[in-house]
């Protein structure tokens, strides 16, 4: 799941973007982990997640994954992923997970300083980090940063640049709302870490910038 490590964005627009991942280890605590993963999912779902899912279930909550059906499938899983847009949700989830003491490894992706601060409030000591050192090589092949901020919310790269451009165009033309645009862009990402709230805000911001530019020109 290094697929949540390289989300593009600014400190400002990453403030509402956190993913949590509960992951068992093949050699340590995977056997019989189903009930623990179910407990963790229950905790995730109690704090207003914006999306969840897994590649093994084949679809995310945003694409219609039923929470109960997903919970039942966890006997054959080794991980649970969930996405939040509020720091308060992460804080509450960490507090509940600490009380539940499942012994399953928990990974939070987001702003490092924010995560450290939340850990301190809950009495946790962050253990290990995977830092993102950016993109190298032929960067001229990449789309604009405003597109990357959306496409990189699916770390497997399944949300296409042209789809983002097409949906953004429809939002600009008033054919769909930013909310509807975010839902359609979330469909290709089965893992459930595509943050619909952040996508909606990013699409609305693009719309706002264009309106402002139009107004200034006029």
């Amino acid at each position, binding site marked *: *799941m*290094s697929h949540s*490590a*390289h*989300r*593009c964005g600014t*400190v400002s627009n990453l403030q509402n973007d956190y993913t949590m991942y509960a*992951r068992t*280890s*093949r*050699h*340590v605590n995977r056997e019989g982990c189903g009930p623990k993963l179910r407990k963790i999912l229950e905790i995730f779902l109690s704090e207003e997640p914006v999306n969840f899912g897994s*590649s*093994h279930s084949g679809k995310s909550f945003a694409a219609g994954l039923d929470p109960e059906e997903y919970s039942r499938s966890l006997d054959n899983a080794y991980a649970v992923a969930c996405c939040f847009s509020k720091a308060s949700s992460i804080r509450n989830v*960490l507090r509940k997970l*600490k009380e539940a*003491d499942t*012994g399953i*490894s*928990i*990974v*939070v*992706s*987001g*702003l*490092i300083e924010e*995560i*450290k601060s939340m*850990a301190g409030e809950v009495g*946790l*000591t*962050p*253990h*290990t*980090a*995977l*830092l*993102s*050192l*950016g*993109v*190298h*090589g*032929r960067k001229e*092949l*990449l*789309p604009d940063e405003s597109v*990357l901020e959306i496409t*990189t919310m699916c*770390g*497997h*790269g*399944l*949300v*296409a*640049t*042209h789809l983002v451009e*097409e949906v953004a165009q429809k939002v600009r033309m008033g054919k769909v709302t930013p909310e509807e645009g975010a839902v359609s862009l979330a469909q*290709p990402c*089965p893992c459930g870490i595509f943050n619909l709230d952040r996508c909606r805000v990013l699409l609305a911001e693009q719309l706002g910038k264009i309106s402002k530019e139009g107004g200034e020109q006029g």
Partner: protein
Amino acid sequence: MRIDPEKCTSCARCPDYCPVTCIHEGDGTFVIDEDQCVECGVCLRDAGCPTDAIYMPEESCRYPRTIRAAFSDPGVQYPEELFPDLKQGGRGTEEMKTNDVTGNFPRGEFGMTLEFGRPGVGTRLREVEKVTTLLTSMGVHFEDSNALYFLLEDPERGTLKPELADEKVLSIIVEFALPEDRLESVVTALAQVLTTVDTVVSWGLVTRFEEDGSLPVKSRLEKLGLTVRPNAKVNMGMGRPLIED
């Protein structure tokens, strides 16, 4: 993937869904450039073809092409015959996600991840070999539970199985551990070779937090000219039994 010309109505719905932009208008119908296609399956699952014209042909499931879906579609498990004893999905490994219970990356060591083709560009496997051969020449050993390891003809030399060189995948991760004192030499060499690859590479580094919560490696990386993003993945230390060192 392939589009059945008898069924395609040229509604033009599918091209926007392709992450590697390989669906184009052909002679009266839309066609998939099968050389560029990474078999991620997004067009098949999500484009909503009104006539079910998109399908996966039998050739896509034959070696070596079957590698494409395994590394591009997260819903596809690695074929047992090609990846014996791998027993995991996903393109990477547990890496830092379970480091609190495995201790795979102790203090004094870093982990490194180089994800070729990410974000959203894709890569030919021959591009990966440029880095794997460099790293082995520097004495680096690759993580043997990463699926890439099974694609190497000679892990000691970093050479790929030759029949795989032209295969294209959405992304593939090179993973290895590194003693702290080798950071500067390896980063400098990697930064140079990454200017020669015909794709993009998302670069990551795994490190333990110091007891005061600091990450001293950040300043070392910045001195080497690398920018560390403000966001990261953080293992919260909640796994049990906890590995401490």
